């Protein structure tokens, strides 16, 4: 997997004559498209993660609307049963792997180095690779739309239905290999970001002074690091079964298809936490800023996040209560699942306590954060009902489950991400988003969201099974399905208001002559607001020295003699001017994108003809060596004694 960059442990000042190892040149002074394709800047990579996720969000959203359109009325025939299977499978897969996860990665990439006071991540080229390989996997998965139809086995693709005997079309192969490839990106990203957080903090930025978002991202990346390989193993087994005739899930040979369920959910349950934790981190930054109070119970916030990370590994079988795992397992996992509600409850309580008595500023970012707290709580409560195994037996595979996980993932994760977008938009792009459209955006989404998913609780308890292509009039599902469909279109349209807002705010800003939004437009708390907006390419002119939690806020406010809190400086007064002179940034590189896109060639080869694998593998090997032998950043200004500084790692 990882392609690791090896810097030479030479102190600056030492000069050492050294010839470059390779003949490959690094792109320098690239502009326009080439700049974006070869960049190793964590901020640009973060933006690209976000844009790619939004692109996939639209595909997944269209799939969702197609599902709702089909279910709007009984006995509908807009989608055939087969198409319907593919559409809901791809909807789930895209939303989980290509939307929620990468938006989390987008925020992590952009904010992590800024919040810990670093110039970039630990391994900038691996960072670029992580993004491109995610994109390559995502595009490969989506290419199945045009190559015989998407996967049709549900997003968790249970065995033995996912075998070649029951699913002969190539959709599941694309699902398998696309996610396999995207998983490589998650894994290398996890290694990179964990190293960054542990090792690249500014002086004084101790672990217990890190912003909550950094903490939640750290936990998220550990979850990825340990969960992705389990999915990879399961996918390897499936690959061998489908492409090479192995028997791992072949029931006639005595195989136990529950193995797939176990492996998938050992990955899958940490997965749901790693989708929600970045959003928890985001609102933990937004709520204190707009309550004008420090976060309540910071250590509890941190340790409950860690506890969620830990306990997330001990509850996977609650997805399998009706699969016949036996009463002992059901009991054990049921109890464990009830316990995991505790740290989540701690978080909800802390957010409420942060807002309690605060001077609330109810702008769009804050509204979305409050939206997360409320909507996620509803989803969390319905989640606890699943922990009760007898009740879960009734709810399994009904719309009640669909309602539950949309409340936690849309009402939780996506609302959190929207809060983050509105909050950090000025830092990223240099202008604020329009508040008026923002409020429409928020209230429209809340309305549409609850209209869409609220009725699903009722439908589920009435017995409407999930993944049903249609239903009969006599079943009594008509009304709530219609409401849900109307809601989904409200939700779809109001979600698009984000894009309208971005476009409109940008044109207004441009028309006004691009006024400077200031380093600290929200009077915020963490150190990413102490640099100019948009963040300069080199991040910090001078590496900050941190002496407090919410360090930037403590620089702005101090107690006077009477113990009253007074502002001693404004953010703009304290902000670094953004002078990058003398700062030395890692040079861009072609190899991350080349290496990333060599992998789908191997993937297509595995599906269509093994001969294709040969050029794919060759390109992979060439890229790895090209990467490893790439000359140092800047041979002409080799004042740091940087020699050829790379060594490669196995490409798993």
């Amino acid at each position, binding site marked *: 997997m990882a392609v690791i960059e090896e810097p*030479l*442990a*030479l*102190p*600056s*000042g030492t000069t050492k004559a050294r010839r470059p190892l390779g003949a490959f040149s690094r792109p320098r002074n690239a502009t326009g498209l080439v700049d974006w394709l070869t960049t190793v800047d964590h901020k640009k990579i973060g933006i690209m993660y976000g844009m790619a996720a939004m692109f996939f969000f639209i595909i997944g959203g269209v799939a969702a609307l197609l599902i709702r359109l089909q279910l709007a009325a009984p006995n509908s025939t807009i989608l055939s049963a087969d198409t319907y299977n593919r559409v809901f499978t791809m909807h789930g897969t895209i939303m989980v792997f290509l939307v929620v996860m990468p938006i989390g990665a987008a925020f992590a990439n952009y904010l992590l180095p800024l919040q810990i006071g670093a110039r970039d991540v630990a391994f900038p080229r691996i960072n670029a690779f992580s993004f491109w390989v995610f994109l390559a996997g995502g595009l490969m998965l989506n290419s199945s739309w045009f190559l015989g139809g998407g996967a049709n086995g549900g997003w968790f693709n249970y065995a033995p239905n996912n075998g070649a005997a029951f699913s002969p079309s190539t959709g599941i192969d694309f699902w398998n290999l696309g996610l396999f490839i995207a998983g490589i990106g998650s894994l290398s990203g996890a290694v990179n970001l*964990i190293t960054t957080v*542990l090792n690249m903090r500014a002086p004084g930025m101790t672990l217990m002074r890190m912003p909550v978002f950094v903490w939640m991202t750290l936990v998220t990346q*550990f979850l990825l*690091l*340990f969960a992705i390989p389990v999915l990879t193993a399961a996918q390897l087994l499936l690959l061998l079964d489908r492409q090479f005739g192995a028997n791992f899930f072949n029931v006639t040979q005595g195989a*136990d298809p*529950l193995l797939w369920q*176990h*492996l998938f959910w*050992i990955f899958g349950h940490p997965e749901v936490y790693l989708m929600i934790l970045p959003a928890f981190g985001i609102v933990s930054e937004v709520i204190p800023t707009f309550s004008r109070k420090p976060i309540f119970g910071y250590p509890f916030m941190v340790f409950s996040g860690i506890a969620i990370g830990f306990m997330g*590994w*001990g509850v996977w*079988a609650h997805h399998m209560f009706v699969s*016949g*795992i*036996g*009463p*002992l*397992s059901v009991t054990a996992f049921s109890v464990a699942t009830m316990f995991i509600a505790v740290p989540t409850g701690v978080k909800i309580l802390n957010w409420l306590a942060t807002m309690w008595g605060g001077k609330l500023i109810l702008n769009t970012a804050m509204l979305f954060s409050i939206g997360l707290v409320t909507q996620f709580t509803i989803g969390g409560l319905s989640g606890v009902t699943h922990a009760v195994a007898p009740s879960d037996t009734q709810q399994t595979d009904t719309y009640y489950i669909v309602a539950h996980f949309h409340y936690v993932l849309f009402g939780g994760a996506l609302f959190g991400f929207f809060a983050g977008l509105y909050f950090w938009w000025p830092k990223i792009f240099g202008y604020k988003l329009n508040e008026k459209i923002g409020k429409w955006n928020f209230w429209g989404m809340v309305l549409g969201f609850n209209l869409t998913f609220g009725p699903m609780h009722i439908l589920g308890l009435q017995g409407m099974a999930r993944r049903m292509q249609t239903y009969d009039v006599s079943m009594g599902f008509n009304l709530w399905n219609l409401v849900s469909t109307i809601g989904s279109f409200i939700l779809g349209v109001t979600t698009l208001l984000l894009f309208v807002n971005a476009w409109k705010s940008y044109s207004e800003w441009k028309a006004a002559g691009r006024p400077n939004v200031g380093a600290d437009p929200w009077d915020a708390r963490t150190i990413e607001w102490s640099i100019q907006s948009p963040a300069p390419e080199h991040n910090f002119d001078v590496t900050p020295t941190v002496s407090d939690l919410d360090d930037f806020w403590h620089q702005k406010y101090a107690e006077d003699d009477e113990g009253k809190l007074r502002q001693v400086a404004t953010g703009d007064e304290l902000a670094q001017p953004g002078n990058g002179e003398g700062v030395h940034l890692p040079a861009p590189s072609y190899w991350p994108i080349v290496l990333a896109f060599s992998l789908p060639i191997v993937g297509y080869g595995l599906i269509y003809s093994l001969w294709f694998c040969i050029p794919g593998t060759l390109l992979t090997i060439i890229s790895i060596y090209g990467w490893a032998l790439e000359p140092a950043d800047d041979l002409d200004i080799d004042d740091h004694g940087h020699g050829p500084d790379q060594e490669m790692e196995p490409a798993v």
Partner: protein
Amino acid sequence: MTDSITLDSTDTHGHSDHDDHAHPTEKQYWIVFVILAVITAVEIAWSYMGLEGPALVVPLIIMMVVKFLMIAGVFMHLSFDSKMPNGRTFYLCFGAAMVLAILVFLVVLAAFEFQI
């Protein structure tokens, strides 16, 4: 701990994790290797003793774990690196993974036993 590594950027390279004097000598590596070889020999002999059940399996597992720890501790320098400041991070990261893997997969295998 902060004081124990006063980092001086003009210092020569590699002083934090290339502390080779902290690493074992060639002779010690050979000793470890001989011990590993002996354990392997005992393992093989044990498997030919015709024992069954726990009498066979438990000693084999114990010997396996000992070998594992020796390789990770000595050859991979974990027991030496962990003595340097913050060096515990290495084995905590790796150890967490190892413990997690063992626990999770033992539960999986147990779950298959209790399946209906």
